[in-house]
């Protein structure tokens, strides 16, 4: 698959960390930063990689509650949070859960 634009540093960091951690079947990282760039909380911040949505499907989530799945990801990305990552929306599913949802 050809990516339309190069990943910025934060995006690549997220991508490589989560790929290593979860060996995902599917990993989508959507950069929503521009939607928040003009918010007062973002004043003085020049990074274009502050707010992300991450949709990930991985067997590594099996048997884990949503909270645990989120903690796995947050834990792995703690350095990114320290470095300016501001918000992360997560959707975490196992392949089985996706299949089940598709059946319905």
């Amino acid at each position, binding site marked *: 698959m050809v990516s339309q634009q190069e990943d910025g540093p934060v995006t690549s960091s997220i991508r490589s960390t989560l790929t290593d951690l979860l060996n995902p079947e599917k990993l989508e990282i959507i950069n929503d930063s521009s939607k*928040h760039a003009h*918010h007062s*909380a973002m*004043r*003085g*911040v*020049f*990074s274009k990689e502050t707010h992300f949505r991450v949709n990930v499907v991985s067997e590594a989530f099996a048997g884990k509650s*949503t*909270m645990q799945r*989120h*903690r796995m990801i*947050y*834990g792995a*990305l*703690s350095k990114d*949070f320290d*470095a*300016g990552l501001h*918000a*992360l*929306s*997560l*959707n975490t599913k196992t392949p089985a859960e996706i299949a089940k949802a598709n059946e319905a």
Partner: protein
Amino acid sequence: MSNYTVIASDEEFAAVFKPTTSTVYALNFWAAWAPPCIQMNEVFEELASKNSAIHFIKIEAEKFPDISEEYEIAAVPSFVIVKEGNVVDRVEGANAPELSKAVAKYSKSTSTSGLNSAATTTTPSVAPPTMSPEEMNARLKELTSSSAVMAFIKGTPTAPRCQFSRQLLEILTAQNIRFSSFNILADDEVYVKGEFVGGLDVVKELVATGEFQALVPAEKDLKTRMDELINKAPLMIFIKGSPETPRCGFSKKLVALLADQEVTYDSFDILEDDDIRQGLKTHVDWPTFPMVFFKGELLGGLDIVTEMVENGEFQQVVAEAKSPES
């Protein structure tokens, strides 16, 4: 001053900034619309006048995006110390003591006077003859622990007697920090919240009757405050803003979700208190807001609570919280 430049162009920067020489450079990245920068610019200038061995360069970050990017400036104010081509120190935010420390570390000048001592606590140089060391220590301990932030300054918040004290006070006020101050020029005077409480005799008496402690709000330590807040109500949310005026899209969605569910809850505005905001993240090991707690336990953020509502889990969990109204 020859060691202080406000750059107006990239060419000027190139002419002034020669990192490969032995000169140490202090770079100030600022923006006019950020009030903390204005305070720190004054501090920066002051440091320049006191540290002739370092070249201070003031850079308006948004006008020079390439330079800002090169030094990975993510927010203003930010300060970078460069020595022999390497970034040897960075100070992020309006932190005058940190900046002074960083500059002092790399300054060859022996006379870095004034600025370092202004923001630190100093014991009064002359103890009144009536006070023993034990009494002195007890009094100091009482004062320093009476407020989360205690500033020992020359003068009072309304009448500072030295420009470093004045700058410190301006910074504290601008940052909306609650603080108490102690006037080191007049050992016999105790000021709490800028108000003259009295001399030593008066203070001793007030301490004895417990009135002094009542004057100064007892600051619980952060951990206690956080635990109390988390348990303030069975369903407790930490958001940006208030339920009536949420100040972030995610907080807004959470409030709407809970309104839909018709549950009772209490909330805390993390924008009002940065100690709680940062402390909570470490305390519960969760990096984002909003946060939702039930009976003192973190349920999660917006994503998780949304999911819980969708699959019915949330309704089960909070059924216990709905007060049995008659």
